């Protein structure tokens, strides 16, 4: 199965991954080739097989609803490119353009 250029661009947009024209071309070939290899699993009949998302038997691990120590806010914010009043700071996501508002 060969991916179209538009499909590669669509997936890159979903992944919020900025790619150059050359990268898109290369990924179109490489992803198509990898998907061909992956298609080997299509020949297995898995109709009656339950999926395995993880291999351990533990489910829904609970703990008492008690407040415990967490990392100090300053330590967490130390790596932030931009911070303001104890918060991470980001660009406005509303009001600059229609496209931004929908992103």
């Amino acid at each position, binding site marked *: 199965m060969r991916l179209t250029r538009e499909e590669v661009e669509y997936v890159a947009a979903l992944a919020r991954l900025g790619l150059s024209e050359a990268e898109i071309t290369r990924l179109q070939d490489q992803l198509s080739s990898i998907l061909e290899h992956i298609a080997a699993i299509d020949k297995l009949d*898995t109709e009656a097989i339950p999926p*395995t998302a993880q291999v351990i038997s533990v489910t829904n*691990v609970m703990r008492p609803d008690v407040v415990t120590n967490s990392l100090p806010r300053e330590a967490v914010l130390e790596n932030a490119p931009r911070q303001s009043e104890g918060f991470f700071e980001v660009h406005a996501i509303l009001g600059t353009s229609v496209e931004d508002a929908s992103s």
Partner: protein
Amino acid sequence: MIDSPGPLTDLTAAEAKRALDSGEVSATDLTEAYLERIEQFDDDLGVYLHVMRETALAQAAAADRRLAAGDASPLTGIPVALKDVLCTIDAPTTAGSRILEGFRSPYDATVVKRLREQGAVFLGKANTDEFAMGSSNENSAFKPVRNPWSTDRVPGGSSGGPAAAVAAGLAVVSLGSDTGGSIRQPAGFCGVVGLKPTYGRVSRLGLMAFASSLDQIGPFSRSVEDAAITLQAIAGHDPQDSTSSREAVPDYRAALSGDISGMKIGIAQEYSVEGMEPGVAAAVDRAIERLRSLGAELVRVNLPHTEYALPTYYITAPAEASANLARYDGVKYGLAIEAATLRETYERTRGEGFGPEVKRRIMLGTYALSSGYYDAYYVKAQKVRTLIKRDFDEAWSKVDAIVAPTSPTVAFPLGARTDDPYQMYLADVFTIPANMAGIPGVAIPCGFSEGLPVSLQILGSPFAEATILRIADAYERSETWSARRPRLELAVASSES
């Protein structure tokens, strides 16, 4: 008493411990010997992304005080390398990626914390494929690692740095992570012991996430005993990792009895694949024969879905990675390339911060999870994963362990597989099934082919680390492969000429 009179940097952790306890050597002596050797050889090998000289010397001094007070643990004063996907408060953690250049973790990984408590000495952060994605360490954004046995060869990956560190005498033991073979395959290529524990045996807190249902931390070492000692230090439940197991941690060293008579060891024909190098097949066959002569009973087992493990992995792992790596967005930490809008900031930061293999996997995973393809790829892969796991479950009713080659080839030359991603992926064809099933596996040296190490992989049932370590130890005692060391002097001389 030191068993071998060789240089300090040849000692195993158990040997070094005896020298430290007797007072023959101090932790400071040992640490300085390693720091000196790193200075001497690491420009050529590329093992370390960051050498923690000051931390190491301070830890060594503290270890000497503990030793003097008679309060030493098995790893007190032992110089260790940490794969740079393990968070450390006192050194950068980059995951081999430009997107995390300069990042300082506000906390230690649980395994790091446990080694600190033991009094281990941290030599530095070891090189890795970017976000642990790769089989040759050539995907490191900073520099490649060279194989200590032949510097024109790759060390394997993704834990190329930790594997080469132990092989080259640039650390006594090291910690790596294994998502599809990233401990066992480089251990094999570098001729050292590498152990991937059962999923859940070791806490993943502070391990930068690649594929959360597959990732597991484990040790590299120059002996099976050292692997047992290091696993003992890091294994066990962690309330901060809900997937870590409450299963009791046995005494791994006590399991190393040297006696494997009567044990049933499985051989699966599915691990004889096309493209297997004759030198590898021959060394592995000899090792299996040796296990028989040590008293093990060889039993044929069938693992019919083995060939589907690789394609299943290349859906599951990228799918999980695409979600895990969404956190690198230029807002919370790491690289930020500011643009006019938030969306453009995301796209440009990620576009410039991630390398080609990471982008490829994010794309593949995003595609597999996208609307319209989710059932055909992601759910289908999860169902095949069930079949792979069932193959193993059935085998455990007949055998105590399964042996196979760790890789179909010895270490390949740098650059040999970088043009074709799938060729690179095939380097992990024998190691991936264990991750899909969540079972433990240990890789141990079992000979040489073309002057390069060959490795035997021993797989066990969930939480049977003690069993596979016992088999590995019995084999190791019967051979001398683990005592061989690469001759680095020659590598330096040839690069200078």
